[in-house]
């Protein structure tokens, strides 16, 4: 035992004086005497343990066979019930096969293999002084033979070349994707693009939008876009109608962006981009189900709780000659999560 105990004050110097014959710390009492198991001494117990192990292995084999039979007996036919029986049958068979095999092996080890503990000495990991000296000498000779110390030019040019050689590996990754450009600032919305229902794509008449209703909206012609999913990921809009008098604040700059209380807001959360899909009709709050950012429609979707910072961008809308809702323009700011180059736009 290499552990040494720090000297410590004893409760009373008088007592200490009387016991200076005693060591500072206790001695390790050594391994306790080995206690035999039933199976070590009693042949009946040993053969019982043997039977148990064999029984478990037999059970495992039975499980294996059951799993294979189940595979052919319960064939999935597309409905849940048959999938469930197939999964359950094969799975339970496999579970039994594996579990019984494992328990059998462990039981064998615990009851019949020697259980007397063995002591193995540890050795210091550090090499001996001689070994360390020899290793240093080898390294020294190696260094000398290579001449790396004597020829600094070789060494330095080697280091330079080594530092440079991975660069093509990084440059070659350039074509992983295009540069962002300004695509994040544009969506499919532009003047005159009709608002349509998601996912059917049917147009929405302003007159159909009743007070308190909410629509999930995509721009008309989304399906014909070159990259519909990417466009949808930016252009998804939530349409709500409420009484204009509910508005707590009024921004003159947004005068005429709604159609008689029909407001269109980007559905993409300004936090990390989940769809803000929950609308509380009573409070006019929009809630993002991912991280609970809460936007107040009566304050132009200002964040009133949660991790988002910026309000949901509003889409200016109007009605066309036929009474359908159309966009007045694109969003006036980038939608979705913040990014470095976004700035104050």
């Amino acid at each position: 035992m290499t552990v040494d105990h720090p000297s410590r004050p004893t409760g009373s110097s008088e007592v200490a004086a009387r016991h200076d014959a005693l060591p500072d710390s206790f001695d390790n009492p050594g391994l306790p005497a080995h206690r035999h198991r039933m199976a070590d001494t009693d042949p009946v117990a040993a053969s019982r343990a043997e039977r148990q192990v064999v029984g478990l292995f037999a059970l495992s084999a039975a499980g294996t066979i059951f799993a294979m039979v189940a595979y052919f007996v319960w064939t999935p036919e597309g409905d849940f019930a048959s999938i469930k029986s197939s999964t359950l049958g094969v799975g339970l068979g496999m579970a039994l096969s594996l579990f019984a095999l494992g328990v059998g092996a462990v039981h064998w080890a615990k009851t019949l293999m020697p259980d007397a503990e063995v002591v193995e000495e540890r050795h210091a990991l550090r090499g001996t002084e001689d070994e360390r000296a020899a290793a240093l000498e080898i390294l020294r000779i190696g260094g000398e033979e290579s001449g790396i110390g004597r020829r600094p030019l070789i060494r330095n040019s080697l280091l330079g070349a080594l530092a440079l050689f991975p660069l093509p590996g990084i440059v070659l990754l350039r074509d992983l994707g295009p540069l962002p450009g300004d695509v994040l600032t544009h969506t499919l919305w532009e003047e005159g693009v009709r608002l349509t229902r998601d996912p059917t794509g049917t147009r929405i008449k302003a007159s159909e939008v009743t007070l308190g209703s909410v629509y999930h909206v995509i721009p008309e012609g989304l399906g014909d876009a070159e990259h519909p999913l990417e466009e949808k990921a930016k252009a998804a809009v939530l349409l709500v109608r409420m009484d204009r008098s509910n508005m707590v604040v009024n921004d003159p700059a947004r005068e005429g962006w709604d159609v008689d209380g029909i407001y269109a807001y980007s559905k993409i959360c300004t936090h990390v981009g989940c769809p803000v899909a929950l609308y509380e009709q009573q409070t006019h709050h929009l809630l993002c189900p991912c991280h609970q950012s809460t936007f107040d429609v009566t304050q132009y979707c200002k964040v009133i709780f949660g991790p988002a910072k910026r309000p949901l961008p509003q889409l200016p809308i109007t009605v066309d000659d036929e009474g359908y809702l159309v966009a007045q323009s694109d969003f006036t700011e980038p939608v979705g999560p913040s990014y470095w180059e976004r700035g104050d736009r």
Partner: protein
Amino acid sequence: MSQTTTTKAAAGTADWLDERLGLSRSVKGIARKVFPDHWSFMLGEVALYSFIILLISGTFLTLWYVPSMTLTTYEGAYAPLNGVEMSDAMASTLHISFDIRGGLLMRQIHHWSALLFIAAMAVHMFRVFFTGAFRKPRELNWILGVVLSLMGLGAGFTGYSLPDDLLSGNGLRIIDGVVKSIPVIGTYTSFFLFGGEFPGESIIPRLFIIHVLLIPGLILALIGAHVGLVALHKHTQYPGPGRTNGNVVGFPLMPVYMAKAGGFFFIVFGVVALVAATVQINPIWNYGPYDPSPVSAGTQPDWYIGWIDGGLRLMPGFTEFSLLGFTMSLNVLVPALIIPGVVTGVLIAYPFLEAWVTGDKREHHLLDRPRNAPTRTGLGVMAIVAYGIMWAAAGNDLMATAFGLSINDLTWLFRTGLFIAPPLALIITRRICLGLQRKDRELALHGHESGTIVRTAEGEFYEVHRPLTDTERWILVQHESPEPLELGSQVDSNGVDKPGARKERLRAKVSRFFFEQRVEPVTPTELAASHHDGSHEIIEPTPEHAAIEGSDRPTGHGHQPVGGS
């Protein structure tokens, strides 16, 4: 007769192999290697075995899975989604679930063992931390373990996204938002990662190759190094009679550990198969294919991502700001990247930090009982509590609906709790540890309460205590209790700070924090004194004891030990 034939054949094979591989030397070196026995040493094994299960079940899944985002119209056994447009990835995952016999079972085995893999690594890490197994010479292996758990998270995240269903797609959307929050390079990184705008058509095949080749390859290599170092260092052991810092006491690899560990692999596999057969996980057919517009309420990530998701929920929005035309989204950056980065850094640094504080340069092969390292144990519990709060915060919406609470109140509760509960946990845990150490002292000094009340001739009552045997006592008294660092003179003869004085003062400060509150283990002197000073053990007086007791017995209250009278 067949016995001899078999023996001959075996001998022949062994001879053939030895002459080509020098196998006898390896067998001699490894086969009787001793491993100590303790249930907590199986936690790492569970992680290893669940990884093997992941390799087996994952290979099965790749036989049918199509890592492509090309849109296709689903025509398959699952009628409700027939005719729905979805990616090949999603369609092939449905195909595995509904058309391939045992396919759903394998998917569930794969997903459950992934959850188990990371959970087992985490609990294994707790064990290593709380017992101080990370100390010299095992610091490097601790770091390998930290990297392995990060790899586990990476494997889990990349695999989670592969079915390309609505749930995992929204997960990817969050990843996109997180990547975009990185200053300067975030937007570019996002475009390179997704091959353009989110979601693009590249991310699934890219995640696939990372998930099935890159990460498992790295994990395998790291596991090799991790287990190799265990063999090199020899396993640590808990303190106990006969167990010293210089030996390892346990059972030999061959045959006991081969049977036990091999059997345990099948037990773990069996349990995973049982769970997978009976408990549904990730029913992607309920979620449907990914579409950037819909989202399901009450979405939960896999458990190991929960703490990051919880952090995202807790971080208030005002921490985002714009400066000079650039946006800094600390509300995303801090919980999603900075905190995990700092946690990783602290985990890697901890063994070195503790060694710096203690100044201990010895090898440690005997584990600490957590109570005997109160500050370390407290710090560990503090970290777990902080992690737990962030993790629980990821379920704030579910808790709010289940218990009818306000989600805003819950969020504020978690926000406040994150700052208050961890330090409290440290203090309380340390007190509990010190209390347990005092209990150990009490037990070592006075033995077990026997429940027998004895009345002395003088009319005094006392309870008879049964003293511990040497073996019983050893576990209570074997440890060290480091003292706080004594600060020597900090100035030189001119009254100027010595070089490194500030560092030394800091070290002394941290050392006081670690070791100021301490309970000493019982010494033989104290034990002898307690026997002497009127405790109530039944003591067979050794000559030494008799002498002590004979020399000066305190008058008045000295109870003659029953056995000794």
